């Protein structure tokens, strides 16, 4: 019977309370849940009727909400949606084979929670300021592009776009390095994600002590007041989804 795995954590945490209340604290969630033990580890799993997970938003959110509930209780490693193995024996084998790597990662996220800190261009600012600054700079185009021919005008247009982009780049890098410095004051465990949209100035995930929630809140509002023209968004606390790099064998 296929088994969905939600999270892995130290068994010692479970022993402190009664595992029998598993259905109680996951109440409202559909499915038959079980704790699977192997070495010092426990996995929260549920039995599935079918192997292929259904990719509906509802299913995914239900999965995430179970991971969330368990993470409130224990220090866990969250699994990605679609973590389905063939049998309960496979879960045990998985835990046994990879126990050392699981220990290492679990230790690194102990008592810590994940937060997302993002800084976005406000659309208004994006169009006005940067473009204007750039036009100032290219009022005098490079000598080689002067002369009113079709090709030169084309190149000049491209060149202007290039300058706008370069300026934008520098502008973003400056903010990024400043915010990075600020983040370092709170934690050394963070990651800047690759910018995937033009409006994204910074997309960071941080891992901080559970007790340091106030510090991250203060950081967000500090950054917002430093860059009032942009939008700061802080979300969390999350299970350590972004800090679970582990090689499964």
């Amino acid at each position, binding site marked *: 019977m296929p088994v969905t795995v939600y999270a892995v954590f130290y068994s010692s945490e479970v022993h402190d309370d009664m595992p029998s209340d598993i259905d109680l604290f996951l109440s409202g969630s559909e499915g038959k849940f079980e704790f699977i033990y192997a070495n010092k580890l426990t996995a929260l799993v549920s039995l599935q009727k079918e192997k292929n997970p259904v990719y509906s938003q509802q299913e995914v*959110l239900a999965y995430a909400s179970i991971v969330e509930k368990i993470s409130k209780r224990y220090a866990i490693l969250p699994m990605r949606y*679609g973590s389905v193995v063939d049998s309960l024996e496979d879960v045990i084998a998985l835990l046994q084979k990879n126990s050392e790597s699981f220990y290492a990662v679990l230790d690194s996220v102990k008592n810590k929670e994940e937060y997302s800190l993002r800084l976005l261009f406000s659309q208004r600012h994006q169009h006005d300021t940067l473009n204007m600054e750039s036009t100032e700079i290219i009022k005098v185009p490079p000598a080689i592009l002067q002369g009113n021919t079709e090709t030169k005008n084309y190149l000049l247009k491209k060149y202007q776009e290039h300058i706008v982009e370069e300026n934008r780049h520098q502008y973003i890098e400056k903010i990024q390095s400043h915010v990075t410095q600020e983040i370092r004051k709170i934690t050394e465990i963070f990651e800047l994600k690759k910018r995937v949209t033009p409006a994204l100035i910074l997309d960071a995930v941080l891992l901080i002590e559970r007790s340091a929630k106030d510090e991250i809140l203060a950081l967000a509002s500090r950054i917002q007041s430093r860059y009032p023209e942009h939008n700061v968004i802080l979300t969390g606390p999350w299970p350590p989804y972004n800090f679970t790099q582990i*090689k499964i064998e």
Partner: protein
Amino acid sequence: MQDDLYDINKEITILDVLDRVLTKGVVITGDIVISVADIDLVYLGLRVLLSSVETMEKRKAITL
């Protein structure tokens, strides 16, 4: 107004949740299967090894 705010917060939260649970977290099963006409052909493995689904099935059979 309160309701609007609630909805917006919920939407942002859902987006963030989906991003995490679909692309982050510990991976124990295959990442990407490229299929042609609903027949799985290319499997993009955990360590970004490109192998055919057939080889994967065979390998699986051996390890089990």
